[in-house]
């Protein structure tokens, strides 16, 4: 979502965006992606528009704005896009099919009370160049000559967001949190129970051995020989897990019990 405050400059509007051209643009934008039905005459007429639209779709996928107001250098913008592309690869979320255009841009106009008309908020999804009071405020509550006075008081903001990123991020975050919680429950509740049932006392003896191995010589020696005797993958994982656990236990002791670090 991006915000570009748009003020109404009556003179500028006519010169920049003629009504017919912007209508074409709008018609193309809201067509569903990948629809083949495009009339020939339209295609002929709208070659540049199509190009713009392709760019627009790219930008929508990369959820970057087309006319960035704050970033001046085009090169840095490209770098930004590459980064976003990477971020998408990371999150495995190239959702091309989602119709972003309809949902992810909006133009919101806040109009204060005027004469006897109450304050009102108007919200429409139109493109940046149509984001002004004249296009968004529909139906216009005032007549003819009051339109300009009314519109001058309104504040219109163009905003863009990426609903896909929000959705994917929240879902990934929740699944990571869920996995961590499951693993925590497993480690703290289930595993001690299972072990007690399976091994009985032998596990306790072994863990005492582990504690005894803290001297510099014995410990590393032990680790080396153990890893050599059982080279298969599963044991390696288990071995790494054991080592990690011992580290965490050390950390827990120094942080929570002895209070030597991080207090």
């Amino acid at each position, binding site marked *: 979502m*991006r915000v570009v405050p748009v003020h109404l400059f009556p003179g500028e509007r006519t010169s920049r965006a003629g009504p017919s051209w912007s209508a074409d643009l709008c018609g193309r934008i809201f067509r569903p992606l990948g629809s083949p039905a495009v009339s020939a005459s339209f295609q002929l007429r709208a070659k540049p528009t199509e190009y713009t639209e392709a760019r627009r779709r790219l930008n929508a996928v990369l959820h970057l704005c087309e006319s960035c107001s704050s970033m001046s250098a085009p090169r840095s913008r490209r770098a930004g896009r590459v980064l976003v592309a990477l971020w998408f690869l990371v999150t495995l979320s190239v959702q091309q099919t989602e119709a972003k255009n309809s949902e992810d841009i909006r133009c919101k106009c806040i109009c204060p009370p005027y004469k006897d008309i*109450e304050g009102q908020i108007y919200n429409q999804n139109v493109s940046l160049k149509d984001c002004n009071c004249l296009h968004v405020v529909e139906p216009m509550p005032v007549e003819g000559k009051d339109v300009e006075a009314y519109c001058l008081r309104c504040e219109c903001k163009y*905003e863009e967001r990426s609903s896909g990123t*929000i959705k994917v991020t929240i879902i990934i975050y929740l699944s990571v949190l869920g996995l961590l919680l499951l693993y925590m429950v497993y480690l703290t509740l289930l595993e001690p129970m299972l072990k007690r049932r399976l091994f009985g006392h032998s596990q306790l003896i072994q863990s005492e051995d582990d504690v005894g191995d803290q001297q*510099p010589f014995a410990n590393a020696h032990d680790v080396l020989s153990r890893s050599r005797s059982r080279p298969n993958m599963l044991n390696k994982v288990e071995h790494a897990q054991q080592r990690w656990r011992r*580290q965490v236990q050390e950390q827990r002791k120094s942080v929570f019990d002895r209070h030597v670090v991080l*207090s």
Partner: protein
Amino acid sequence: MAEAEAISNATPTEEMNGSGNLMDFLDEPIPDVGMYEDFHTIDWLREKSRDTDRHRKITSRSKESIWEFVKSLLDAWSGWVVMLLIGLLSGTLAGVIDLAVDWMTDLKEGVCLFAFWYSHEQCCWTSNETTFADRDKCPQWQKWAELMTGHTESAGAYVLNYFLYVLWALFFSFLAVSLVRVFAPYACGSGIPEIKTILSGFIIRGYLGKWTLLVKTVTLVLVVSSGLSLGKEGPLVHVACCCGNLFCSLFSKYSKNEGKRREVLSAAAAAGVSVAFGAPIGGVLFSLEEVSYYFPLKTLWRSFFAALVAAFTLRSINPFGNNRLVLFYVEYHTPWYMAELVPFILLGVFGGLWGTLFIRGNIAWCRRRKMTRLGRYPVLEVIAVTGITAILAFPNPYTRRSTSQLISELFNDCGALESSQLCDYINNPNMSRPEDDIPDRPAGPGVYSALWQLALALIFKMVITIFTFGMKIPSGLFIPSMAVGAIAGRIMGIAVEQMAYHHHDWIIFKNWCRPGADCVTPGLYAMVGAAACLGGVTRMTVSLVVIMFELTGGLEYIVPLMAAAVTSKWVADAFGKESIYEAHIRLNGYPYLDQDEFTHRTLATDVMRPRRNEPPLAVLTQDSTTVEDVETLIKETDYNGFPVVVSRESERLIGFVQRRDLTLAIRNARQKQDGVVSSSVVYFTEEPPCLAASHPQPLKLRRILNLSPFTVTDHTPMETVVDIFRKLGLRQCLVTRSGRLLGIITKKDVLRHMAQMTNQDPESIMFN
């Protein structure tokens, strides 16, 4: 064999350079030699000379073949690649944290019906049902009470919402503290004191590990959304440093050299602040001013690059939807007047006092936690503080929302269409058109009720932050400090504004505040107050001003910010020199040498070990110690290194050998080298003498010997010794008199001596 060829390239000077050990390629290097144990101090000189050696080796090899040349190029570029990766990952993580916090904070109040992953604002994004009076209400977003009972405005609904708010807060913080406890205890706290210590050359294994990264990121979201009075900025620095450490392990240049690794970590800290505040230059300066110890120019450029990449990545994710990197970005261009410097300086005084109060209170509380039974109940403590925070925060609208949102509202100037209570001014009915600069107006009832709510929020934040910072969850103090300052600043801003409005004729207002002019911007006062309070707590000055200036994008406010930051530092320094981070470093007894001058007239001989009545120094001789002797020495003492002398009679110094290297080398020899038994003689000389067949095989250990240990004479003033330790990053220094070894000074001895000289308990220095 490549190694054999390298010998021929090695010039004789290399042997003399630093630790000559790496130059001896006669047999394969022992694994792990040259690494450090947990909680030990690194030797910067040794790391630096090892890197020089490595670099020289690569350069000489690169002339041999194209492949080696390419490899040398890759090596030269690896620093920039690491920076790029750090920037990408820390920017992404910051984006994820921002988005998730946004959603989870709102989850405490309600849920979006059609898509649960939307926060309140996102949920009502497309809605057309919002009205001018209730701008943030839409039918898609439902509060919990509305969802459960169907009522919105009854007392029962309020109580139910209150109850669920507290319950969610407790749930989040309980999850956070249990995750920290089970998976990564090192993930708690802000992390900046520890990173400062690590960057000064200390090893805390696992502190920047993968699990710490994962758990800190996940729990940071939980604790920030639970509404506790803490921020994500400090922990983000820790997260970025974890990213730095993660990517260091990809390149042996950084993973095997602790000194080089710290250069990367300095840059990563810059990237962390860059994404936390959206201030890349401020981040670089923060790293330089606050956290880094060794910061060469090369690191400066790399930090800049990392900060830039991180900021761009976050910017492309655009988590707040305002095309800015932080929620509380503001942009105004109203001018300020010279007379306003007086209230700005007063805010600076307030910031300094708050900084002192916070540091004293927080350290006292943390000491109590460390020393007494309180520290045994970390989970209960977190739950209790969260409960109190949530119960007290809900009734006040300024504490109920997230602290960043509060700061954002306080920073913002009242526009014409602002709906906030703070902007409830009495409008002039015949005002023609609301413009950007609205003239000063009398305050309406909303402003007055907002004022006392803010005053309550100020007291609440001040008290609860002291107890929150330092709990066993990720917690930063930038945001709470800024909130305290912003509240105080806004209150003062409104006071000045109303005074100016009602008393145009006073002599101070006469010159700059005519009726109908917009002369006081309360939002600017909030910003100055935030800078002052942050400065009082952290004692930053330059980086703070730059961060604030990047937040506002207006150059014209640099003078007010500077005035407030400097005043706050002066006032706070008058009550105590330490920043909150240094105070925590001292509380934990980390071996950190700060940059203050040492002015006492003591000599090296007063500090060195052994003292007068202590047993003599444990030394090794170059050619008469047996393996068994060495092993007993290692077993019976706990020194971290041993000087090597020519013989016990002459005591002329040859070099210094680390305990860890010695242990590893002997174990390795016993396993792999045939003929090395307990009675084998250990040789530190260049060529062991030829022995008769009856003698056991000798053990040559010259390559683990540091031939250029740093030495001072016994009459060197401690001032100089402290300076040497600080500037060169030594771990130990040997004391000699006319070539004879007298004793040793370690970093710990220096720190203990300094503590003693300033009348502190020397035993508080815990680590080696």
